């Protein structure tokens, strides 16, 4: 590969091409590419095709009405986008969430992490031409969706984590279902490692492709799987334990290669920890109520809060300002896809066109979450 400094392209040879927004992999998102033959010399992301103005919408609704629409940007990870919102509103109102509610928040958040990471790994399998991974992956992902449906009552957008606790208690049969799914999933993850992650074809296609160094990951503000694959040990659950995360035993997996393979593999390691957390939480679920009675229009004192949690893709943060009125004055959603997008033009440069889908998907990027 040529270094940028020693590369002098002839302007007549450069062709500018759009990848997307109708491309099946990069749905709702466009990459502008400048190519020399099949060699990418510059990339510019063009987002905004699914911008819905969630932040403006939040200013027109009260704190409870905001719950169902704020989870829409990332329906794969819908509990995790509501989690920091609920934490932020709880902090403004000085709510003490009951322990059972805190544990159920953790269970749902970790189940969503698996649902989201399974989708990510399966699609990476699709892009690598690995049909087994997408079929197995999507099938097993459905078991977790079934579990989440038994807890939250819906299959994708649960609106489960709300200010003051969670919406409803977990039924007894869902606990059994969850523990069974954990056992089954542990076995399956070993099989994914054998058939996908240790597959020579997958190694050949994604080793050393799109390497993000540790320094760059920090400078760009990358987070979650992308940062942890580059050796940056960031994990809000460990750094700043919230909602009883300090009660559970788990590790923060991280790798140092920083390539596409590592970014995918770190998602599997994350799921192993998520299964551990779910199992512990289901086994020692404390008794008691699951939510506080807040009423349909809670009074939120004036104040400013910055809350954050570890979502499937990385650090999800909210900046909420209340002026004491029933509606928030300002809601800023800091989404992990947006934080990881900053590294994209740097990664898709001096690579072949055939490597674009692999690098692009390895960033675990979700256009709707990025646009909000």
């Amino acid at each position, binding site marked *: 590969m040529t270094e940028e400094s020693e590369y002098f392209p002839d302007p007549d040879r450069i062709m500018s091409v759009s990848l997307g927004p109708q491309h099946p992999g990069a749905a709702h998102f466009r990459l502008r590419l400048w190519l020399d033959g099949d060699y990418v010399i510059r990339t510019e992301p063009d987002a905004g095709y699914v911008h819905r103005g969630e932040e403006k919408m939040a200013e027109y609704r009260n704190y409870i009405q905001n719950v169902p629409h704020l989870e829409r940007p990332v329906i794969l990870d819908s509990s995790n986008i509501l989690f920091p919102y609920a934490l932020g509103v709880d902090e403004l109102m000085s709510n003490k969430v009951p322990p059972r509610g805190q544990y159920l928040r953790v269970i749902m958040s970790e189940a969503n992490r698996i649902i989201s990471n399974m989708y990510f790994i399966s699609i990476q399998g699709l892009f690598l031409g690995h049909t087994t991974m997408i079929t197995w992956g999507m099938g097993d992902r459905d078991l977790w969706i079934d579990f989440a449906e038994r807890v939250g009552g819906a299959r994708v957008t649960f609106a489960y984590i709300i200010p003051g606790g969670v919406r409803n208690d977990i039924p007894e049969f869902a606990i059994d279902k969850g523990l069974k799914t954990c056992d089954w999933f542990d076995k399956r993850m070993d099989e994914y490692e054998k058939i996908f992650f240790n597959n020579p074809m997958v190694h050949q296609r994604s080793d050393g492709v799109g390497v993000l160094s540790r320094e760059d990951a920090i400078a760009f*503000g990358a987070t979650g799987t992308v940062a942890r694959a580059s050796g940056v040990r960031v994990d809000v659950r460990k*750094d700043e334990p919230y909602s009883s995360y300090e009660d559970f035993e788990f590790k923060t997996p991280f790798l140092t290669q920083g390539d596409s393979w590592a970014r995918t593999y770190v998602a599997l390691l994350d799921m192993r920890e998520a299964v551990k957390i779910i199992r512990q939480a289901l086994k020692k679920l404390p008794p008691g109520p699951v939510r506080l009675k807040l009423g349909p229009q809670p009074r939120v004192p004036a104040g400013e809060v*910055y809350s954050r949690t570890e979502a499937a893709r990385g650090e999800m943060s909210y900046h909420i300002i209340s002026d004491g009125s029933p509606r928030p004055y300002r809601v800023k959603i800091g989404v992990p896809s947006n934080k990881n997008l*900053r590294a994209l033009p740097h990664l898709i440069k001096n690579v072949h066109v055939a490597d674009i889908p692999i690098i692009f998907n390895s960033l675990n990027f979700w256009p709707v979450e990025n646009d909000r």
Partner: protein
Amino acid sequence: MKVEWMKERRLKISTTVGRVKEIGIFIRDSLGFDHISTVSGVDWIAQNQLEVIYFIGSSTPGQEDFIMALSERIPRENPVAPSMVDVWRGVEYPERETHEMFGINFQGHPNQSHLFLPEDWNDLPPLRKDYVSPGR
């Protein structure tokens, strides 16, 4: 300059446009806040001011839980602020978003074209308080 605790391990530094870059370089180099989290904007229409807040985390061991909020207030008419791209490379897209949503002009920013809004957006910046969503 005003320094206050939002809560434990969340420090908010409110400063002026003239000194924000100097303080940014200080908290990056001397205090180790190198991991940009997000950039938020607020329209304080009653005070006729716009606020830009940089939320910066740290990758230094021992202070990963610490978030520094660096804030500056600028007048609503002709809002100009220095771009912090050469302090933290990661603020390029968040600043671009703040530019289009609040109409703040970041001086020294490499590219302030629209990121989320249509290229031909011909209205007030949408997150300003005097912009009313259609149908409201």
